[in-house]
């Protein structure tokens, strides 16, 4: 027996889990998608990811050193931020984009608030929004076609204006053509054909496999789901967030997303395209920036879904996942504040 025993508060045993384990769990869950990105876009995808990760780790270490707190880059949180940031970049961006994005994400998105656990917004998304606002050309035109597929993942039917577009951008374009009263009949016919193709089984399969253009990590739904299932199995993400998020998008897209009136939208296309799967499973579920209350996570997921659909359908951007998650991050403290669960034995919620 020791000379001096340890005295501490109960409990005296702990579950075998740690922040580090969870973070590396997320990294493991992202590995299939990383491999997929290399397959679809070549080694450039890996190169950009590594750059983002290194920049994130170095920034974190430097700031922690400067702040005089222990350097904790081993906890894996900066690693996850770096990977997720890279995942949100088009594969053709110049090398400095992921580097500057990571620096901003870690410095302004996280460390300025005191580091892990205190940042109100998802750092990776802060980094991406910063890049999108600062260098919109790089962030919206440097797509690459996926191996074994095309950029838009579908036939274009002479919509020549969209040769550089991702599926969602094609959708936005054709919807605009259809909605524009000044479009010629020929244009509208072409647009309708393209629209039909977007919803075809072929396109859906392409989207699911990942044979479409898009950001580095967001294209292959299949590989992302593999990782997501692992995380759900470990109970490291709250299933209610992606579930309510995806369901909301699906329903709203079905109801409002159609070109020919209500209830004609293609829910499956909306769920599978863009960064929705990546966002719903890996970014909306970011523990630090999502609510902790049971009702709160549902509100959070539904809110993300509503905003995503609004931005996609009538917003200025083809894709709205990152902004909607950021907006709901902003609202998270408010949600938490007003969704405190009823205590066990609480007779009546006192307001």
């Amino acid at each position, binding site marked *: 027996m020791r000379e001096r025993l*340890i005295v*501490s508060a109960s409990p005296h045993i702990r579950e075998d889990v740690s922040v580090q384990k969870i973070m590396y769990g997320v990294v493991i869950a992202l590995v299939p998608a990383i491999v997929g990105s290399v397959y679809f876009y070549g080694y450039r995808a890996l190169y950009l990811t590594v750059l983002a990760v290194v920049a994130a780790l170095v920034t974190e270490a430097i700031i922690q050193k400067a702040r005089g707190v222990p350097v904790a880059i081993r906890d894996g949180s900066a690693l996850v931020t770096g990977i997720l940031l890279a995942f949100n970049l088009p594969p053709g961006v110049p090398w400095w984009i992921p580097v500057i994005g990571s620096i901003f994400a870690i410095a302004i998105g996280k460390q300025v608030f005191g580091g892990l656990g205190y940042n109100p917004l998802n750092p990776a998304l802060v980094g991406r929004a910063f890049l999108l606002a600062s260098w919109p050309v790089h962030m919206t035109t440097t797509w690459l076609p996926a191996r074994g597929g095309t950029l838009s993942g579908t036939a274009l039917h002479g919509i020549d204006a969209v040769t550089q577009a991702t599926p969602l951008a094609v959708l936005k374009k054709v919807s605009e053509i259809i909605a524009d009263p000044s479009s010629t009949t020929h244009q509208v016919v072409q647009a309708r054909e393209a629209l039909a193709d977007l919803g075809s089984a072929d396109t859906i399969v392409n989207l699911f496999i990942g044979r479409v253009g898009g950001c580095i990590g967001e294209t292959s739904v299949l590989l992302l789901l593999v990782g997501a299932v692992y995380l759900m199995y470990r109970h490291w993400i709250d299933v209610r967030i992606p579930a309510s998020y995806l369901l909301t998008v699906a329903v709203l897209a079905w109801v409002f997303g159609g070109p020919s009136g209500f209830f004609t939208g293609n829910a499956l296309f909306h769920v599978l395209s863009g960064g929705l799967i990546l966002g719903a499973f890996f970014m909306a579920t970011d523990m630090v920036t999502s609510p902790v209350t049971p009702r709160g996570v549902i509100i959070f997921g539904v809110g993300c879904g509503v905003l995503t659909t609004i931005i996609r359908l009538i917003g200025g951007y083809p894709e709205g996942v990152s902004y909607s998650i950021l907006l709901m991050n902003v609202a998270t403290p408010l949600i938490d504040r007003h969704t405190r669960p009823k205590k066990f034995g609480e007779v009546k919620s006192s307001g």
Partner: protein
Amino acid sequence: MQSVVARSMIALTSMAAIFGAILAVASRIFVVHRDPRVEQVLDLLPGANCGACGFPGCQGLAEAMVKGDAPPNACPPGGAEAAAAIADMLGGEAGEMVRKIAVVHCNGGLSNSVQRLEYEGIEDCRAAMLVGGSPKSCIFGCLGLGTCRLVCPFDAVELDEEGLVHIDRVKCTGCGNCVEACPVNIIDLVPEDVKVHIKCSSHDKGAAAKKVCEVACIACQLCVKKCPQGAISMDDNLAVLDHSKCTNCGICAAVCPTHTIVDGVKARPKAVIGGGCDGIGKCKEVCPVKAIEGEPGERHEIVREKCIGCGLCMEACPNKAINMVGALGHQRGRE
């Protein structure tokens, strides 16, 4: 062109008059009694309603100040002037009081006392008491986790590597927060001019106390016997100092075998025996530290290393042959 001038003047002046009238009438109809002090403070505030203070406007801040919820310097635009004026206005109650300073009655650090357990938990003495008590074997002693530092609003408490607490005598305002927060009740407010402190709170018997702490009071009674003012007494195995009697002579600190009593006087004078000495030896008798040597009838000498400057010999010498020198500016007790 003149008409623009006329139109402007008529329009603006009449608007001002109408609005002024509305306000004047309204202020009479909707008059609400307010605390006059709030009004006074409001007068002293800039009235910009900028919100920089975090209160809802100057009115809100004024009310908070009167209630004591906000310090007089809470208004950034007002600056130091407003702060001083407000403090002047509100702070009429302070009155004249002897300034008191917090003193921690324990000197048992990590290296000179025994630890009985390894504490893992919140860095707060009160929290430690909740799960198992003091990490020290001496249950009366300072836990060394710094609750007093946490509760000190003036940043006046420091914790050293020994786990000992030091109070900054300049910053301490004697607010007593630490006294209340200390779970082992070893902090006490002591008049500022008392500079000799008994740094132990152990009521254990001498041997037991000594076993767990090198600087514990072992209740040897030496200080009680030697104190010329009779200011020290024994209470349940612990020396206790009567602050009103203490003259800071430092004799107790000098005689304490365990160095439990700490002399906070920075520099003390030394006695010097002048030519008037006729060797009657009165001084030798009264010297508590045996710092005077000499044969009867001969001129006595002071052993400077031993002299603590208590001045007893000077008072005892019938020939007034002894002087206290050195320690410029040092004041002896409270005359």
